[in-house]
């Protein structure tokens, strides 16, 4: 219980980045990697574009096919990837921190399924058409699902163990997914639009959609950045956190709000994309150790890097077709989840 991230079964060696300077340098390296990922995302695809052409598309726009592909298709897609990746990475980090559960992820805990169900209901039952409207419903759905899963996982005879929380999330997700597909099946036009949205994709979304959800993502990320101290305290256990002067209920509520804003906003733009929130915090923790003041900024960078690389992979793997990024993430994320489950005794963070 004292160590925040070290698994009991296999004692983990100290993270590679221990000093403040090393961590800051790591952040800088992250920025460089992100720039590389952005360039890849702009250059790679069915129509390959050279790096020089990518740059000239912005400095010296000539309307060639390559320039149009970069500016009209790949730029929005990349920007959305950055925003959604950052939001999901941060959401996963905060939810792992606040539940002290290494298996937590907005997808696995049913939060994304809740947002997806709310959005589909809003579109096809209530006739909502604006992205801001979707975002509000996504937030509502994410919030209700999060509260339900946490209440179910945490109530009962013992505190929420990693396992019960994951199981409660899986059950809630299964229920909501069944309801969502039932709604979509009622009409084939709906199904046609729905099947592209529900796999989780960055393609075919315009910047207007991002703008509609941006306020929610910003609020979520800011809340997350401001709760890092509280997460550090909560990692020591509720009693210690209280004795350190934390208002536990308030910090939990703010952190949960951050998760709901990030996950709900991300789903409203890109559809449900699982496992980003699972993988990113583990990678960040492996680099910088258990201090959330560093983990959260690292997740903010690693989320977009992971999502953009997964998106580029999806374009390359079945070229000239495309694998949606939600599918690529499941293929990357499921083995990570299984590895986490297998690597020894599951401990609370």
């Amino acid at each position, binding site marked *: 219980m004292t160590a925040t991230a070290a698994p009991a079964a296999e004692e983990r060696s100290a993270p590679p980045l221990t000093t403040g300077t090393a961590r800051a340098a790591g952040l800088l390296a992250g920025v460089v990697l992100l720039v590389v990922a952005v360039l890849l995302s702009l250059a790679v695809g069915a129509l390959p574009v050279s790096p020089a052409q990518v740059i000239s598309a912005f400095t010296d726009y000539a309307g060639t096919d390559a320039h149009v592909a970069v500016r009209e298709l790949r730029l929005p897609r990349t920007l959305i990837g950055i925003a959604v990746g950052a939001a999901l990475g941060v959401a996963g980090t905060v939810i792992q921190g606040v539940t002290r559960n290494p*298996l937590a992820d907005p*997808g*696995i805990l049913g939060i994304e399924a809740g947002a997806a169900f709310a959005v589909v209901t809003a579109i096809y039952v209530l006739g909502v058409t604006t992205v801001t409207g979707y975002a509000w419903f996504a937030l509502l759905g994410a919030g209700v699902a999060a509260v339900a899963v946490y209440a*179910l*996982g945490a*109530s*009962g*005879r*013992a505190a929420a*163990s990693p*396992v*019960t929380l*994951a*199981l*409660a999330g*899986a*059950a*809630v997700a*299964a*229920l909501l997914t*069944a*309801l969502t*597909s*039932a709604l*979509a*099946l*009622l009409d*084939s036009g709906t*199904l*046609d639009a729905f*099947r*592209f949205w*529900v*796999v989780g994709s960055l393609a075919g979304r315009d910047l207007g959609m991002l703008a509609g959800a941006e306020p929610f993502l910003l609020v979520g990320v800011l809340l997350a950045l401001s709760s890092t101290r509280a997460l550090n305290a909560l990692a020591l256990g509720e009693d210690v956190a209280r004795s350190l002067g934390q208002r536990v209920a308030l910090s939990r509520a703010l952190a949960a709000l951050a998760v709901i804003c990030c996950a709900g906003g991300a789903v409203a733009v890109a559809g449900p994309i*699982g*496992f980003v929130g699972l993988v990113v915090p583990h990678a960040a923790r492996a680099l910088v150790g258990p201090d959330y003041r560093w983990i959260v900024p690292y997740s903010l960078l690693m989320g977009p890097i992971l999502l953009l690389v997964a998106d580029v992979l999806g374009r390359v793997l079945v070229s000239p*077709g495309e*694998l*949606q990024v*939600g*599918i690529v*993430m*499941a*293929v990357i*994320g*499921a*083995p990570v*989840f*299984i590895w986490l*489950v*297998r690597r020894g005794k599951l401990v609370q963070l």
Partner: protein
Amino acid sequence: MTGTLTRRVPVRSRTFSRLLDLRLLAVCLGAVAVGLVATALSVSLGEFPIPLGDVAATLVGAGSRTDEFIIVGLRLPRALVGLGCGMALGVSGLIFQTLVRNPLAAPDVIGVTGGASLTGVAILILGAPPAVLPVGAFVGAVASASLVYALAWRGGLSPYRLVLVGIALAAAFAAGTSYLLVVGDLIDVQRAAVWLVGSLNGVTWDEFWPLVVGLVVLFPATAALTRALDALSLGEESAVALGVPVQRARLGLVVVAAALAAFAVAASGPIGFVAFIAPHIARRLTGLTGASALPAAALVGGVLVMVCDLVARLVLAPIELPVGTVTAVVGAPFFLYLLYRANRPVGGG
């Protein structure tokens, strides 16, 4: 175990001697009665209601041609396929739950149904003849069961590790399924999507006969393995001490349970949560544990699917919901309730 002596009566003839459990008998007879009523209602009610008298007349060959078409051509196969699927799922769920000694295990929770769905959708989308569907679903179910088993094995089989690995694999399979749905033609996709929620809409005798063949083979196989199942439910050491060839028996049970799930999935698509709740209801009603509750689990499963299908057809008439929606609405809260009650990180059975 109180009252076991008083409520069991021996049934003997020259070649046969068994203890007959009266409560089990009562539950089974009750389930059969409810099943008959549900079948009668299911055949009689619908867009063209047919009075029960005319139903009876049609079944003995004295009905009008319209009635005969509606009953024999449409509603009867639907009712019987529902019944058969439910029975297969109930038995499959009970085998899995007893085998891994985990009340939360079910083919749909541990990814077996997900594997069957993936191969099933692949067959529907790639345009293979429908007769191949049961074979494909069987291959998918057995392959995924082995994969879950292998990945969860770590010097022993922790029930919770099995479920968590199953959740991750189910997510990966679902991603593969979504990919197939995205690349397919809309007409195939629509067929596959309806099939995927688990639906008896449009089921004909073509689905009925493979299912019957499957059940005729697999129920006796299950009966032959009940002793081994009961022994394994006491733990591996006890099973060895009782003289059960543990590895072979376990393999046989996994194959039979996966095959049962596969035949049900092939006929109707994955009807969620039935395999999970039917054994629980059966155990609760009969007060039995382990393999002795098998007959009750089968009958409860069959009745459950039929009643849920009746609700699915009538609740939003004339729209027919997929039965999987109704079973999810019933089953998911029950799953969460069980989780809430047994909210301790132990491998209860």
